[in-house]
């Protein structure tokens, strides 16, 4: 029993790394542009189909397919901003939310039309790594390591470069940022592009682990949203911690009971946070 727990814990932590990247993207977009990207997980799903199509149908090597997915999903994020988010920036919050939620339907049905409802997987044979009694899939380890490296790079960019500082400044006080000479429109566009490229990257990490189907993204959008609320909306550090909490808790709950119950547990955490501590673990200050 102990070994089962230990394995669940280890896998939960590994899952947490990728979830942290997912939550980072959602958080960044919310923090800067102040919209909730309801179809974020669905973008990951589309990225996985891109990789599947390139790898399985056109025989492109997985690494190349992954790189292409990052680029295509980055462009996808740019287009999403120009065609959907930017025209709605001055609109009511509810309208923004409905439009982005509508994208869930659009993306899922798009995938359905193009690739059908069957599970599509990229077959990769990687060895299993064992640490004593704990067994870890190499693909999970790679995803975890990759996610941490990318998070580290993003952290560095946000803290050490002018562009990164400008992104943070716009998130904190948009009007004052324009008085620094920052063009907020460009920062918004850049944020959605980075957010999009991240979905392509997460798709690359997920592809060797999961098979994709048109509704694959739903549970990840939900998971990312729970993490972001748990950590405090717009708070990147909170999202990082929240990702590991949710990763470990759902992984343990799945082992003790079942995968369905694990989702119930995650949602229960979500409801409790909203009831008891709506500002999240590391409550971000209210946006002006």
């Amino acid at each position, binding site marked *: 029993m102990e070994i089962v727990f230990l394995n669940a814990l280890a896998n939960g932590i590994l899952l947490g790394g990728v979830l942290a990247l997912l939550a980072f993207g959602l958080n960044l977009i919310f923090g800067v542009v102040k919209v909730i990207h309801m179809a974020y997980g669905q973008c990951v799903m589309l990225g996985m189909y891109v990789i599947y199509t390139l790898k399985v149908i056109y025989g492109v090597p997985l690494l190349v397919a992954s790189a292409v997915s990052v680029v295509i999903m980055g462009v996808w994020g740019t287009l999403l901003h120009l065609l959907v988010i930017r025209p709605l920036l001055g609109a009511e919050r509810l309208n923004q939310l409905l439009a982005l939620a509508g994208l869930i339907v659009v993306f899922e049905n798009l995938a359905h039309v193009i690739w059908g409802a069957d599970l599509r997987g990229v077959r990769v044979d990687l060895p299993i790594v064992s640490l004593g009694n704990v067994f870890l899939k190499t693909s999970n380890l790679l995803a975890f390591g990759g996610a941490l490296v990318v998070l580290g790079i993003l952290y560095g960019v946000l803290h050490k470069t*002018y562009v990164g500082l400008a992104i943070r*400044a716009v998130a904190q006080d948009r009007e*004052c940022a*324009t*008085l620094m000479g920052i063009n907020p429109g460009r920062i918004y566009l850049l944020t959605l592009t980075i957010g999009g490229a991240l979905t392509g990257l997460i798709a690359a990490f997920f592809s060797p682990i999961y098979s994709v189907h048109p509704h694959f993204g739903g549970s990840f959008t939900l998971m990312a949203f729970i993490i972001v609320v748990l950590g405090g909306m717009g708070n990147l550090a909170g999202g990082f911690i929240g990702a590991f909490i949710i990763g470990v808790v759902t992984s343990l709950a799945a082992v003790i009971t079942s995968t369905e119950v694990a989702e119930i547990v995650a949602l229960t955490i979500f409801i409790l946070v909203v009831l008891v501590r709506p500002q999240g673990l590391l409550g971000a200050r209210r946006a002006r």
Partner: protein
Amino acid sequence: MSLMLEVRGIDVFYGEFQALFDLSLEVRTGETVIVVGPNGAGKTTLLRCISGLQPASKGSITFLDQPIHRLPPHRIVELGLVHVPEGGRVFPNLSVMENLKIGSYVRGARKEFRKKLEEIYELFPRLAERRTQLADTLSGGERQMLAIARSLMSKPKLIMLDEPSSGLAPMIVTLLFEFVARIRSQGYSILMVEQNVRKALSLSDRAYLVESGRIALQGTREEFSRESYIRKAYLGL
């Protein structure tokens, strides 16, 4: 002295409400000009309109012979006209150093960031002590100084200060005006909105009185301090 900023006959509306009426004002190179007037007279609106945050429905604004009233705020900063908004609006979750760095965001200011930073730390030793602290943890006076210091990082030609002394303790206000005087002596042109008429007037070259969105009075410092209306209503003499 050559004309640096020229505001010609601007009208500004907030929806139905008209805040400024056919207002004109100018700042010449090297001048310190102050704008005084009661709350709600439109002083802040005037600065917001010049820096591009609030559009004018009529009139023109020219900075260094270039019309700027149709430019977005970020383009206006690049020309060398910087606006320090009311209340020392620093970025709360950036450190003091990061706030100063973002001040040098505009093209042309980045290369000299390190050099400028040293100058600023010399001018404001308090900020040097607190360089790694989040701006959120600063006192009101320190925030205001950070906001002013941040504006200097963009290598401006004209600095617009909106009520730098508001909400500060009298001792801090004195300190703050010393800093403004020091900045002035370095050759920057300044356009300052102030409630503290006596102090502001003492370091100004010229002054404008704005009431109900119109220029009610204008003149040199001497003319202004002799005016009986100003003496009674604003200087309490």
